[in-house]
């Protein structure tokens, strides 16, 4: 079974968010990049499937050379092969189409993406890939079992869990629950050494035109200082919520 795990290179959660070039670009200066957490849940699940489903795991990112570091980390975690499609990732549509071009050349039974990235939070890439390829799709996926070419998936829905059965090929949007945080694999020295021997292929991009282009970034307005209310003045809190904030 062939699994593709799509990886997004994202700023660590604690990063300061700043913009440069007349607020048209995200300032990467001094920012630590990590594997998008939702993608990492998916990657861990894929690594488990090497044993349970005799799977072959390829990781892929769309990005420039700076993304190689996280691809090497994915290889150290246990992926068999890494691919980087060499271009700047501009929007979800062009990124998805670059991935789709690759999926048309190499057939995968299962494509795993994170349900959304923690930088742009669009949550678009998995659905777009599924739509372009006309594959089945389950996002917010919290469990997955593949047996005899059939997938059984659970999806978190508002107020519950939905179980579905699907033919392959399938695209999933992974999230916590598919594996737990404590299941995430920390690369050991052997993994890191082995990763150096594994292939990291760089493919040229098809240069697909972006359709959603961020022209200008803004920061949220400075928040007003918190209004502190004494614990024995709860009537005041209720009054503020009712008449000032108008939320109750």
């Amino acid at each position: 079974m062939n699994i593709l795990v799509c990886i997004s290179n994202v700023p660590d959660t604690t990063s300061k968010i700043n913009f440069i070039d007349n607020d048209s670009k995200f300032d990467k200066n001094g920012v630590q990049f990590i594997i998008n957490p939702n993608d990492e849940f998916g990657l861990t699940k894929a690594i488990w499937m090497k044993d349970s489903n005799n799977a072959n795991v390829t990781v892929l990112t769309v990005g420039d050379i700076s993304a190689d570091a996280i691809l090497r980390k994915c290889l150290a975690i246990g992926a068999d092969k890494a691919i980087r499609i060499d271009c700047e990732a501009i929007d979800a549509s062009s990124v998805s189409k670059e991935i789709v071009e690759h999926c048309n050349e190499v057939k995968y039974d299962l494509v795993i993406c994170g349900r959304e990235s923690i930088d742009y939070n669009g949550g678009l890439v998995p659905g777009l890939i599924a739509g372009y390829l006309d594959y089945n799709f389950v996002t917010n996926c919290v469990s997955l079992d593949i047996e005899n070419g059939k997938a059984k998936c659970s999806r978190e829905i508002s107020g519950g869990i939905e179980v579905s059965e699907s033919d392959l090929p399938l695209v999933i949007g992974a999230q916590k629950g598919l594996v737990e945080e404590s299941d995430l694999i920390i690369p050991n020295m052997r993994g890191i050494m082995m990763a150096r021997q594994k292939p990291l292929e760089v493919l040229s991009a098809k240069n697909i035109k972006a359709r959603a282009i961020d022209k200008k970034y803004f920061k949220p307005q400075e928040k007003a200082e918190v209004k502190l209310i004494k614990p024995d003045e709860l009537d005041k809190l209720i009054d503020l919520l009712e008449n000032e904030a108008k939320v109750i």
Partner: protein
Amino acid sequence: MGVLVYAESENNIIKKSALEAVSYGKALAEKIGSSLNCVVINCSEPNILKQYGTDKIFNITNDSLKDFTSKSYSNALQQVIKAENTSILILSSSADSKYLGAHLAGFTDGSFISNVVGIPDNLDPFTVKRSCFTNKGFSSTELTGDIKIISISANSFGLIENNGHGKIEDFHIEDISSTITVSNIEKQSGKVTIADADVVVSAGRGLKGPENWHLVEELAEVLGAATACSKPVSDMGWRPHSEHVGQTGKPVSSNLYIAIGISGAIQHLAGINSSKVKVVINNDPEAPFFKAADYGIVGDAFEVIPQLITKLKNRK
């Protein structure tokens, strides 16, 4: 050129988030100078859509759409888009709408943008504001493409009533075959869900143990709120995972978020940032959450919460 809204329903009731999408759709249709149409799926009582300015309501009734799957619902919406020559589709940001939006954009080769927080500033080029970096930033984004799909961030626009004709037309769809089927749905009934709630009451380790959660539940009940918890609380098994809100948990975009005994780690804030008003109750005045809060009480939750419950009950 027309604006179409997919008005999501549950058990025959149009969801509040869908009414917000319709309100947004109406404002956009007025800006463009076009009509506003809505589509409902297996919903027999769509009349409320009239009150939000809908000109026409396309009513799809089909057994193969009994259970939601993004593929079958995308397929149905695609047929409406094609028949009506729709150029802009508006979706709410419910889990299902976001789910099908991307899939539909792939099928129709449309341009999809999510987390939108306002009416387009400009129609040509089509420029719209959306949130990014977990609400630590916004971007003004130019969108091109013949079909634009816009998913609006919950509680960013609000409900605006408007009179519309609301003429209901049955829309017949071609058969949909699917190789994905829903086999089981387990759902808690009678509980407000985090996604649909106007108010969310959330608690963290400060509550000391699961046996104290009745305080959270009572407060939530009197406010008609959903209950939620921080990551450590769900990791320790005090509360189910489905209540975990934060970066790797559920996102919260409610009007009011009340955090009890949650210190406010950056990963937690990332998930709840887009809530409008935040109230923090914590006995540690140095808790980072106070910096992100609108109203704060430095005090002991075990004293404050019971009093707050009593006062809120008496108010009603």
